[in-house]
């Protein structure tokens, strides 16, 4: 692969991802409206799709205010961290056999490392705002994300044991005969739950909990800085959906009547829609309930999954 091709792939992936993240604003609002029997935004453009443009323009023209009591530099960098860390996570995802930014040997671990760095945006954003509600949101976010990172890593280890590699292209190729959702259903479910908690989406959006914390860690943010948190959240959804498709649902593999990228896109989009359906249907758990389920139910289950997978693998080896 020449340098030019590589640069083109990077730019292309970046362009598509940012457009998907922006388009999800419209998708989410329309789908939520459909499931709640409303119309949703349908005025601007065909099917209201220009709401994306209108929303972006609105965010750009809002006053970009930095509170005088805030820690200025940390306040500015916090929204950038979330977008940067999530975009870095996309580096290792194989979109097709050829379109992948970097097929690292430690690919999966790289993804976990980047998602663990994403905590900083919430913690620093909440702390730098110098505001009680923001700080509470940051505290909740930090403990939630640290707790669920543990299960997120462990839930993927079953797949790694069956493949024998952390390389994502190997993991996809290992699913040629059977998807890992068949052999690792528990791992898949726990990974998805941990993914929701990691992207702090509803129903696990307790760091921002608008009914009690008034948007929590980004209460003081306005304009495009808030927009970065917003885009970061949608990128996070896309990342978790893409990982779900790659790890458990065969990635770009599929019958030959559609090209690989179309299979990948379809699978990822199905999970994005599932994220939105969850938001439309489930209430938010209490903070202590979330933490207790994590440590007392999910952690033992995930360890059991690893134990059983290892035992079965040894048994099959003979």
């Amino acid at each position, binding site marked *: 692969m020449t340098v030019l091709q590589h640069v083109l792939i990077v730019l292309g992936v970046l362009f598509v991802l940012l457009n998907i993240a922006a388009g999800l604003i419209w998708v989410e609002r329309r789908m939520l409206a459909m499931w709640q029997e409303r119309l949703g935004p349908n005025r601007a453009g065909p099917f209201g799709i220009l709401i994306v443009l209108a929303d972006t323009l609105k965010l750009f023209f809002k006053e970009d205010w930095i509170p005088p009591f805030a*820690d200025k530099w*940390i306040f500015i960098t916090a929204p950038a961290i979330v977008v940067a860390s999530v975009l870095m996570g996309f580096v290792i995802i194989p979109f097709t056999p050829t379109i992948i930014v970097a097929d*690292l*040997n*430690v690919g999966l*671990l*790289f993804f*976990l*490392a980047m998602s*663990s*760095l994403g*905590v*900083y945006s919430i*913690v*620093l954003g*909440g*702390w730098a705002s110098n505001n009680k509600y923001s*700080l509470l949101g*940051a*505290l909740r976010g*930090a*403990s939630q994300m*640290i707790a669920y*990172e543990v299960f997120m*890593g462990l839930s993927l280890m079953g797949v790694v044991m069956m493949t024998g590699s*952390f390389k994502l292209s190997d993991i996809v190729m290992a699913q040629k005969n059977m998807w890992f959702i068949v052999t690792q259903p528990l791992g898949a479910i726990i990974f998805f739950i941990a993914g929701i908690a990691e992207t702090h989406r509803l129903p696990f959006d307790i760091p921002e909990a608008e009914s009690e914390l008034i948007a929590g860690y980004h209460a003081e943010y306005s304009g495009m800085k808030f927009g970065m948190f917003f885009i970061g959240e949608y990128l996070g959804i896309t990342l978790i959906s893409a990982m779900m498709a790659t790890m458990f649902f065969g990635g770009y593999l599929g019958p030959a009547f559609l090209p690989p990228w179309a299979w990948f896109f379809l699978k990822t989009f199905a999970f994005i829609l599932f994220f939105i359906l969850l938001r439309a249907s489930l209430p938010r758990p209490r903070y202590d309930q979330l933490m207790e389920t994590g440590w007392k139910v999910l952690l033992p289950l995930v360890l059991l999954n690893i134990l059983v997978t290892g035992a079965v693998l040894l048994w099959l080896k003979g």
Partner: protein
Amino acid sequence: MPVLFYIASVVAIISTLMVITRYQPIHALLYLVVSFLAMAMIFLSLGAPFVAILEIILYAGAIIVLLIFVVMMLNLGKDTALQERQWLQPKTWVGPSILCLVLLTELVILLFRSPEVPMQVKPVPMRAVSIALYKEYVIAVELAGFLLMAGIVGAAHISKHRKKHLHRFLQEEAKGPQRRAEKLTMIREKESTEAVLPAEKKPVKKT
């Protein structure tokens, strides 16, 4: 590539110096994160990707977040920064730094005198690391496990609730059964007195 190694090293040294000299604890911790990321980069350039990623996941992603978590809750504001500024006077740090500089120059001289060994990058695959951990160093791994287990048990013991503290509204509710019992006895007493009174008025009773 030695260039990457040297750039990462310079970043690591500068950020570690900044950790020591910042007045605001959160800023110091952020420089510590940068320092750990630079360390990960050094490991990566020396051909140990597994250790590099673990460095990011464990140190930058978990341990420093916990430190920031604690510092956030301490609510250290401008007063702490002022206090730090007062403590970090030149007269406190000039002496030790000069002595350290002497040691550093000695170290550099020794390093330059020693025979030149070209930096060799020998990538260690993850499988080799895992096999070494679980074969040759298995006792060390298990001892580390014991230590962590002891830490977890200790933390669980310390944080155990001995006394349940309730919000004042909930206290009323928790007292509920007790109050209900008191009320019941009161009502019973009242009933018994009332039962006595009409009995005096109406001496006719069913037998």
